[in-house]
């Protein structure tokens, strides 16, 4: 059947192509110049016509040409495009030169494309081959470590959760720091839509095997065309388009398993009992009180903790109960093809991941159709359409007793299953057994499912008005419909104590976000030396979000989970909010003699989010480039094959604040005991506007030895002013903060990219390396200290989110007291600070607050090696983060020298026990807070290097696959997060707790799950 369809399709194509009488057929083979291997899928087009074809599985093609003067153009991704005059011969074999790191590749910019060599801004491009089939949930994770100056961090190992991305550092204290994401011209929804602080990630709805390229616009020249929302950089995602020629099918499948990247060691029962007996004795508390507690934990059976010889003796490793082996499988099929009038790309994908945390899973089913049709020589139109459904079995946030990782707080004395009930220990039966709620109860007696239907699409039309002048109009939308359903049965009562008979809620979020872009493009070269590329247009975006929510309590039994069965409907709400942006933009790129480049752009942005007094902002940028290697004086040397200097400067804005922040508001949510009430909720600020970032960038791009070595070096400085800042106001006003434009911060950095083709030939080896440093500094907060959670602060003169608190000085060898450095400022006679008092105190209130850590990495980088030999391919990527600190927010519970009943990390065995002991762990004193207050005791270095991805593949020889009637068969194995090299003692150094993650609060580990280490086996089949 498929064959018939294909044949009829081909028939229609051949009918459509006008075959002229004098046409003759040219055939030939296309091979790679490096190793002579045949290249399947090379596009061959007849210049000046729309006629084209593709090479088959063994690199052969056949095309009709009208005359000997006809020119055929051969193009293929990763190779230099070749144009050849046909001549008289009927056989034409072509060898294409490898061009995998070419400076001639096309880079997508806002509202257009530019050749890399002509680019005057800084854009990092990651292409589809780098992100395809990476076993992660969302596209940002797949580019981790591959774009210089782009810091990507998954907060923990939960599936489908939010990912932090910082392009050249944080540019705001209160407003958003995530970049703007644009998919095929549509700014998309990326904010978490979660009802809890455990975020969802709307980017996980995108099947990134459909993505052709990801361009990260980093400097002002590249980003300013996105105006008031470009300060944090812009990520342009371009999906795959059709191709003229034979219809290609590609099937990808992989399957594999995953495990946690790290574990921690915990006290066993003997160690636990010893520690807590000691801790209670040191605090002057009774032994019997401790022993009765042990017995309670040991489900009432003393021998479980006391008698190692007893068959009942229990020593549970709780962590092993929740960190499980996950698995993943993904299948996707795409079809790509087209003729001279219509090209298309269609795909369907399925991903199912069971996480490394018990009861955490993610499933995505997605489909896409991208079509473009040339109606006439002047008019073309098209549609890009995608639909996805994701289903996520989610978990509580890190700061919930019910989140799996908090199970480590339970004493090892308790059995997993309570022998009295046969179900998880502590499942409610009237008296509590464990110290805290047992998260395993949630596994059987709760559900937390989020289902998202997501469609992103656009329709566009393009009209060629004159030669070089065209107009494009597009209308795009992003529709997100999310349903979150949770249910907690009566067995979870200990954790839902006000809902003894079960509680459930159901929340719908619907966002309709639409966008229209309309712009002229003028592209012409005058007198063969003046190349002009100009764009003028407008865009309008409107996004409306509706939320409805209902909560019910008291269910007849755990079989009933919908609110319809709840005897009490205890809560409900409906909300609506919206914002709009109206923008006008213009850009002119001018190129003289292919060597002098100039680009000017400007955008006027108006937004409903800003105050009435400053609704519109203007964001200009200018950049220039000089391609030195094109100069005549460079023609005689061969070392430097390419050299370009570029500089840019421009303004961008940040408008990522809540809607309506400029208005004085009253809220009607202040009812009391069934009587409606209202309250003042916000003070007005009619002057509220975007914050502005001025960015300067200087860059060098170079190629050496015929581009065998190429690279880029950039230095930049980003200065943000008029910070959108939640300014603390005196609480005596009845308000806590007001959003104002006040304060300044800066980011300065350096980026280096190096791509080398180490060995070229039958054995091919390429390396791409990037490293970047960024220094963030808050220069003005008007003297305020903005507090985050724990010791995270924003303070003037420091990087955002530094840990600011008492400095731990270890343990007094005499008595086991925790000590802190006083760090009081020492002043000379003139009142100048000359230093700090480094004497110690055991009273933490006597210790001055100082900077004790910085969660912002000093350096980030990555290196990818790719090797090919015959059909074998091998690639491995390392990713590294250096110089950042982590604050263990759970430290005061889990590494607290027996301060409270929580099980302790193994390192607490080294606690102070007798005078003269030299250790960092204070004497165990029950309930006495000996060294457990927030301090640098819980700060550690979070640097790491990770073997992020290793892939080894084998492509079957053409001779075999041809027999199978296929065009390509590749089998491969991939490992993700294979090894992590770090000094961090926690589960995983890539951590940013979902319960404590804001602009200021970063780098917090709070019972945060480790990442997944995944190994997959996969196959790619083309036919």
């Amino acid at each position, binding site marked *: 059947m498929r064959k018939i369809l294909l044949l009829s399709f081909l028939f229609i194509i051949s009918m459509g192509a006008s075959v002229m009488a004098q046409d003759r057929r040219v055939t030939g083979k296309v091979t790679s110049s490096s190793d002579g291997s045949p290249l399947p899928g090379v596009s061959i087009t007849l210049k000046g016509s729309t006629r084209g074809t593709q090479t088959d599985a063994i690199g052969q093609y056949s095309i009709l040409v009208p005359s000997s003067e006809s020119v055929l153009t051969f193009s293929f991704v990763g190779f230099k495009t070749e144009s050849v005059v046909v001549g008289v011969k009927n056989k034409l074999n072509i060898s294409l030169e490898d061009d995998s790191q070419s400076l001639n590749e096309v880079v997508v910019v806002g509202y257009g494309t530019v050749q890399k060599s002509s680019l005057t801004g800084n854009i990092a491009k990651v292409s589809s081959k780098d992100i395809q089939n990476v076993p992660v949930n969302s596209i940002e994770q797949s580019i981790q470590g591959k774009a210089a100056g782009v810091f990507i961090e998954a907060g923990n190992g939960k599936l489908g959760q939010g990912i932090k991305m910082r392009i050249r550092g944080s540019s705001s204290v209160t407003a958003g720091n995530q970049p703007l994401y644009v998919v095929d011209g549509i700014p998309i929804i990326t904010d978490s839509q979660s009802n809890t602080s455990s975020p969802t990630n709307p980017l996980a709805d995108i099947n990134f095997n459909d993505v052709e390229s990801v361009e990260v616009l980093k400097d002002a020249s590249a980003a300013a065309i996105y105006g008031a929302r470009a300060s944090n950089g812009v990520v342009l995602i371009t999906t795959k388009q059709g191709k003229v020629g034979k219809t290609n099918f590609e099937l990808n499948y992989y399957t594999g398993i995953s495990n946690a990247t790290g574990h921690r060691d915990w006290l066993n029962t003997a160690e636990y009992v010893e520690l807590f007996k000691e801790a209670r004795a040191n605090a*002057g508390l009774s032994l019997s009180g401790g022993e009765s507690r042990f017995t309670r934990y040991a489900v009432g059976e003393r021998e479980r903790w006391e008698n190692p010889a007893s068959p009942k003796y229990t020593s549970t490793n709780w962590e092993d109960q929740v960190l499980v082996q996950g698995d993943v499988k993904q299948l996707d099929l795409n079809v790509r093809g087209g003729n001279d009038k219509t090209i298309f790309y269609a795909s369907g994908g399925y991903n199912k991941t069971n996480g490394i945390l018990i009861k955490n899973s993610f499933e995505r089913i997605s489909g896409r159709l991208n079509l473009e049709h040339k109606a006439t020589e002047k008019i073309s139109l098209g549609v890009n359409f995608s639909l996805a459904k994701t289903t996520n079995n989610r978990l509580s946030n890190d700061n919930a007793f019910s989140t799996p990782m908090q199970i480590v707080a339970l004493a090892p004395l308790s059995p997993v299953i309570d022998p009295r009930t046969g179900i998880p220990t502590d499942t409610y039966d009237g*008296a*509590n057994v464990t110290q805290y709620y047992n998260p395993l109860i949630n596994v059987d007696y709760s559900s937390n499912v989020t289902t998202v239907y997501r469609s992103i699409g656009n329709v566009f039309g393009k*009209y060629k*008005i004159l030669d070089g002048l065209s*107009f494009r109009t597009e209308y795009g939308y992003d529709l997100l419909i999310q349903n979150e359903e949770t249910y907690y049965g009566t067995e979870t009562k*200990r*954790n839902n*104590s*006000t809902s*003894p008979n079960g509680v459930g809620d159901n929340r719908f979020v619907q966002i309709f976000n639409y966008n229209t872009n*309309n712009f002229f493009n003028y592209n012409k070269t005058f007198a063969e030396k003046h190349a002009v590329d100009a764009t003028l*247009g*407008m865009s309008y975006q*409107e996004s409306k979000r509706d939320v409805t929510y209902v909560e019910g*309590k008291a269910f007849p039994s755990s079989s009933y989970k919908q609110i319809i069965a709840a005897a009490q409907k*205890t809560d409900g709400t409906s909300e*609506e*909010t*919206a914002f709009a942006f*109206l923008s006008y933009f213009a850009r002119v790129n001018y190129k003289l003699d292919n060597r002098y480049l100039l680009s000017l752009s400007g955008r006027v942005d108006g*937004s*409903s989010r800003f105050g009435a007094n400053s*609704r519109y902002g203007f964001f200009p940028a200018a950049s220039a480039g000089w391609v030195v290697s094109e100069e005549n004086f460079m023609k005689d040397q061969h070392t430097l094959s390419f050299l370009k200097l570029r500089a840019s400067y421009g303004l961008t804005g940040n408008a990522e604040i809540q*809607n*309506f922040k400029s*208005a*004085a*508001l*009253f*809220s*009607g949510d202040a*009812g*009391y*005991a069934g*009587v*409606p*009430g*209202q*309250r*003042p*909720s*916000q*003070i007005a600020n009619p002057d509220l506007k975007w914050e502005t970032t001025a960015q300067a960038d200087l860059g060098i791009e170079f190629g050496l030895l015929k581009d065998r070595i190429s690279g880029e070096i950039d230095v930049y400085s980003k200065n943000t002013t008029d910070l959108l800042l939640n300014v*603390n*106001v*005196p*609480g*005596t*006003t*009845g*308000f*806590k903060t*007001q959003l104002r434009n006040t304060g300044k911060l800066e980011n300065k950095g350096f980026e280096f990219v190096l791509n080398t083709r180490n060995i070229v030939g039958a054995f091919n080896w390429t390396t791409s390396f990037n490293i970047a440093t960024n220094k963030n500094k808050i220069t003005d907060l008007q003297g*305020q*200290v903005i*507090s985050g959670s724990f010791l995270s602060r924003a303070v003037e003169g420091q990087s955002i989110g530094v840990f600011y608190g008492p400095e731990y000085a270890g343990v007094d060898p005499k008595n086991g007291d925790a000590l802190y450095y006083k760090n009081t400022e020492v002043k000379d006679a003139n009142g100048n600070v000359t230093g700090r008092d480094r004497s110690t105190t055991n009273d933490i209130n006597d210790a001055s607050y100082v900077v004790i850590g910085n969660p912002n990495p000093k350096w980030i980088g990555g290196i990818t090696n790719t090797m090919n030999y015959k059909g074998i391919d091998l690639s491995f990527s390392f990713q590294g983060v250096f110089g950042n600190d982590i604050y263990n927010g759970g430290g*005061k519970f889990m590494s607290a020298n027996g301060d409270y009943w929580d099980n302790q990390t193994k390192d607490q065995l080294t606690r102070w026990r007798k005078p003269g002991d030299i250790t960092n762990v204070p004497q165990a004193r029950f*309930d006495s*807070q000996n060294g457990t207050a927030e301090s640098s005791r819980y700060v550690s270095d979070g640097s790491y290097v990770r073997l992020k991805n290793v892939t080894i593949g084998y492509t079957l020889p053409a001779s075999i696959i041809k027999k199978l009637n296929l065009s390509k068969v590749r089998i491969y194995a991939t490992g993700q997060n294979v090894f992590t090299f770090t000094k961090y003692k926690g589960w995983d150094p890539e951590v940013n707790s979902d319960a404590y993650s804001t602009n200021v609060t970063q780098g917090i580990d709070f019972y945060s799950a480790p990442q997944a280490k995944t190994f997959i086996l996969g196959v790619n089949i083309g036919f």
Partner: protein
Amino acid sequence: MKKRLIYISLLASSLLMGCGNKLDIKPVNDIDASTALTTSGDIEALLVGAYDSMGDGDVLGGNIQRDAELIADNGELSFVGTFTAPREIFRKKLLRDDQQAEDTWFDTYRTINIANNVLANTGVVTAAKKSKVEGEAKFIRGLMYFELIRVYAKTFLDGNPLSNPGVPLVLVPTKQVDGSSFVGRNSVQEVYAQIIKDLTDAEKLLPVSNGFFATKNAAAAILSRVYLMSGDYANARDAADRVIASKVYSLVPGFQDEFNTASNTSEDIFAMQVTAQDGVNSLVTFFASSDKGGRGDIIIEDKHLALYDANDTRNFFYVDGDRFTGKWADPFANVKIARLSEMYLTRAEANFRLGTKVGASPVDDINVVRLRAGVLPASSVTLQSILKERRLELAFEGHWIHDIKRTKTTIIKGTDSYPFNAPNLIFPIPLREINTNNKLVQNEGY
């Protein structure tokens, strides 16, 4: 050709222009302040908002009362929860940035600002309701300042209230943040004067009956507490007597039946309301086991139990792993703020101190309370016995530290002792406030 080009350009240009007014998007969840306070109903709804704010868990929803028990502890209870702030309070070692110190401050002033908004707009209220609305707003403001002054300043009877710093008095609503928003601390004396003025006005303005909202007697009851705290026993006695003499309230026959009630009992003079939809009983959150809807954070030690006689029904505890008070064991029960038995105890103490018998003799008043509790009547009373009765009757209701301070009692906990005026029995002015407003002076010891 030319014509077509012009048409196309016009069409394209029209697509480029003309959506300017689309940026005027109005909020729909909230409303603009200019339209919020225009009718009598608007102001009445705002007043309800003040009750809602006062019922917040960090205000009279329970945390203020909880902290009055925790900070006074002498070994009769234990705080075993994971929350850092109440633990610091229990240990009498508050850090400068104690979160509860910040939340109580902020949420109480938030309530005051709403009350100030009501008081600034009573002109819009219909004549029939005007004095009731004004009375309720003044009741709330007076009560809130009374809570603040007791938590953040030296107690009235410690040193000189005229010079001891109290809390800032803000009596007008906040329309914008400007220089006038940065206020210093008024003296303890000034704050007490304002509290007495507000509550006295409220007692005059309020009706006797007003559902579960503030009434004439609620104002008098709080006023008796304020006078008692400031050592003005005559006024304390008279205010308590006015409540008792009104005969609006009667003791619930069984002591234990007074507690865990969804609505106000005959004994409740004022209580914060909690329903399944709205409000929180934060005392239950901390004092109750998970079986009773709490976190099981505050357990009652043997030392406390030893205070009760054998058949005292106020010996009201249950065991769920640990021992918990029976007073706070239903998350949807109201939070008792003032009960009639407190009025008897106050009148008895004041009469005893003054040697008077206004309303009844001290021994008769004490026996009203004892009889209801199921213990034998006392034949005579001493100040000590009156205060012990007060301790047993009002345990875990948020009176402990205040009674300790006004009676100048020293807390002995293990080997530590804390005189009534120890600086660590006073909360710090929140570090965030000190950093924000340089007119504020920090308390001793922080």
